């Protein structure tokens, strides 16, 4: 499943970059966060409360920054497990300055869900995954306004 979107900010791409390359700040936007542990500047561990259909419970996420190209590109990898399921999301973010000032952030998230969640709540997964990922970027964009 691939999802994508883009946002425009009044801030410049380098300002945006410095914000979203900081795992601690980015992590604050993970929806339904229960706990967070920053392991290094490239790795964070998080526990979230997740639910889909009637399957509900804790989900453990490992958040890694996989690519840093200052001012232009960022890559994250999210690996999650819990609820008898596994999730892998690879996210790439591209930043571009606008001629009118401000910048654009475009993101693409490639998501793979396996396990109980995928098999039991198949019909709901893509909308749910999209919702969560969008929430995450919505939150980021709020903070960058």
């Amino acid at each position: 499943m691939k999802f994508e979107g883009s946002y425009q900010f009044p801030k410049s791409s380098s300002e945006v970059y410095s914000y979203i390359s900081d795992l601690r700040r980015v992590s604050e936007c993970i929806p339904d966060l229960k706990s967070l542990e920053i392991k290094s500047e490239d790795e964070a561990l998080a526990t979230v409360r997740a639910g889909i259909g009637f399957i509900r419970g804790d989900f453990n996420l490992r958040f890694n920054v996989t690519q840093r190209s200052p001012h232009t590109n960022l890559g994250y990898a999210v690996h999650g497990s819990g609820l008898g399921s596994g999730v892998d999301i690879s996210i790439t973010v591209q930043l571009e300055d606008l001629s009118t000032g401000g910048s654009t952030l475009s993101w693409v998230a490639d998501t793979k869900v396996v396990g109980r969640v995928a098999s039991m709540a198949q019909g709901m997964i893509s909308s749910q995954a999209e919702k969560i990922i969008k929430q995450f970027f919505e939150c980021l964009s709020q903070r960058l306004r």
Partner: protein
Amino acid sequence: MTEVPVIHGMGSAVKRKEDVRFIQGRDTYVDDISLPGMVYLDFVRSPYAHARIRSISTERAKGAPGVVAVITGKDLQPLGLDWIPTLSGDKMMVLPTEKVVFQMQEVVGVVAESRYAAADAVKLVEVDYEPLPVVTDPKKALEEGSPIVREDKRTNHVFHWEAGDREATDRLFEQADVVVGQDMYYQRIHVSYMEPCGCVAYYDSVKGTPTIWMTTQAPHVVRTVASLITKIPENKIRIISPDIGGGFGGKVYVYPGSIVAAVASIVTGRPVKWVNDRSDDHPSTAFARDFHMRAELAAKRDGTLLAFRVKAVSDHGAFFGDANPSKFPFGLFSICTGSYDLKAAFVEVDGAYTNKPQGGIAYRCSFRVTEAVYAIERLVDIMAHRLGIDPAELRLKNFIPPEKFPYRSVMGWVYDSGNYAGALRKAMEKIGYEELRREQEEKRKRGELMGIGISSFTEIVGAGPSHTFDILGIKMFGSAEIRIHPTGKVIARFGTRSQGQGHETTYAQIIAEELGIPIEDITVEEGDTDTAPYGLGTYASRSTPTAGAAAAVASRKIREKAKKIAAHLLEAREEDVVWERGRFYVKGAPAKYKTIQEVAFAAYTNHPPGMEAGLEAVHYYDPPNMTFPFGSYICVVDIDRGTGEAKVRRFVAVDDCGNIINPLIVDGQIHGGLTMGFGTAFMEEIGYDQDGNIYGANFMDYTIPTAVETPKWETDKTVTPSPHHPLGAKGVGESATVGSPAAFVNAVVDALWPLGVTHIDMPLYPWKIRRLLEEKGYALDK
């Protein structure tokens, strides 16, 4: 003369003896067993269909409240129990040490004081997986470069099997006027017994005896295999199969749960219970069918059928575990010439490993007969439509005629007896075939879609003769041990295991018939390896043909001895003693008699000098041949052009299973089988996406028929006894599951044929039909 008591022998529709406990909740299924100090086993299961295990961390789980043991594949390795042999000579993983090969595979066993505590602790086990590429399509699995499921095999190719005469078949195809061919997929389905699999294992460390109560259809086989693997002497292992809530083939297998429970009992010194949740059972126990075939049929223009060939790929999941007789890696698929007198046939099948649980269950089916019947019955129907000959007429023209029995098929099977036209004609008459065709004609003119489908199947059951049939080398005989006690009461034990088929009643009826003892006085026991005679269990409709025959022969042995005792009591010569149900009398003087009960008493109190005391017999019955039940089913459907729903208006089933022991039970077996066939045809499928996620993991997503959708079945019979079975019986447990799917599909395709539809793969979901109607410009909007 005194009244002859009612004994409820052969043919009596007596109500079942076993029901007394079931209707009062006094049954004992595995989950009803509770032993002092018992703990519960639950599993961590893999979310991935294919992944390497980087690490397993069990520390948090071990420290959780109530947890008494955590067992991983590494713990099983030193015991040689991380892999165990399957029934097909392959092996299967119990718990993985290197990688997982299907989604929901058992990875770690957690044992705790309660089932809730075990389920809690399961969540605390951390497994780090490295996902690997997945293959779920067996055809892709056989391609070069596909991910390899089994590293120990280095290929996904399980076997290549062929039967018949390729050249003769190809030649007939070249000469034929008409050839029809069809690609068909017989989807993967789950047997869906209502009672999920489970066991209670208890290892008595003082006596060194493991006892396992388990949901198994074949307890003796389990015991032998367990003994061979563990080196625990066979006499010390006790496998008990208590009441079983449906098996249908799915409980022939031994699943990791039982092995881990047994090990956990040794480790903890306590009884261990494992019972699958439904959502764990569906995705991790064995499946049936999953068979991709290309079938072709050749005929002359006048409708004479000539030859049949099939090329197929079968999906076996990650382990080749089919419970097949060892000489038949693809079961009895070569019965695929069915009820027709063909000149040649050829089939070839390649088996593939995929990232799914093991497949190949003979789901209420005698080893792939279901797929065979589906193939030939679909193709005969397609041929009839292509030639413009009525499907009934084409069948009647090509049936093996009654005078040709015993009939040797081109595949080498010797059919014992049959009257195929008799069954089809009876079904046609009962349903009003001619009238229905006229109605169809008129409806077509009005644009209404109505279809009539026939299936005239031939089964092959009762495995089987020892010269050809064995499982892991053990011959497929049937066994019975009958003891008559001094007061004329009987305890009879069998090596089979009823899962609802009513053995406690039918076996008693056979003994009643042979010995004239009322069924109330006969107790039938099965399923305990400590007491029952060795036997291969119940599946593939083999109980009546094998153990039922053993009961008859053992009874006859007893009668022989009883006759000698009667002669002694009557002071007559043995030749002058005549048997009449329940008593012996002196020829010419029927008033001078001894009842079987009097004889039984004498066997312990006043037996002839020189004779052994007692009245009992054991018999291991080796059937001289298989039996070949058959039947004709006719289905009428109406298709809603709006929703695409195909509604079964009527379904007539005429079955011939030879002589009938209990008509009530036979009827019940047929109703049940038809409902399963109906589910297969219209709603059941286990699917996988390309990542190996299973669809159909529980009763929310895997729909089986409820009372609302299920048609009201109309059944009838013809009786063509088996000439070689001691009772003339053939076995019936599976005829309807085997025979009916083709009738449903034939009916739906018959309705849609004028639109140019030649085939639809099952399940015939309304959306599939609706989509076809749209394509053909025939859909109505509501």
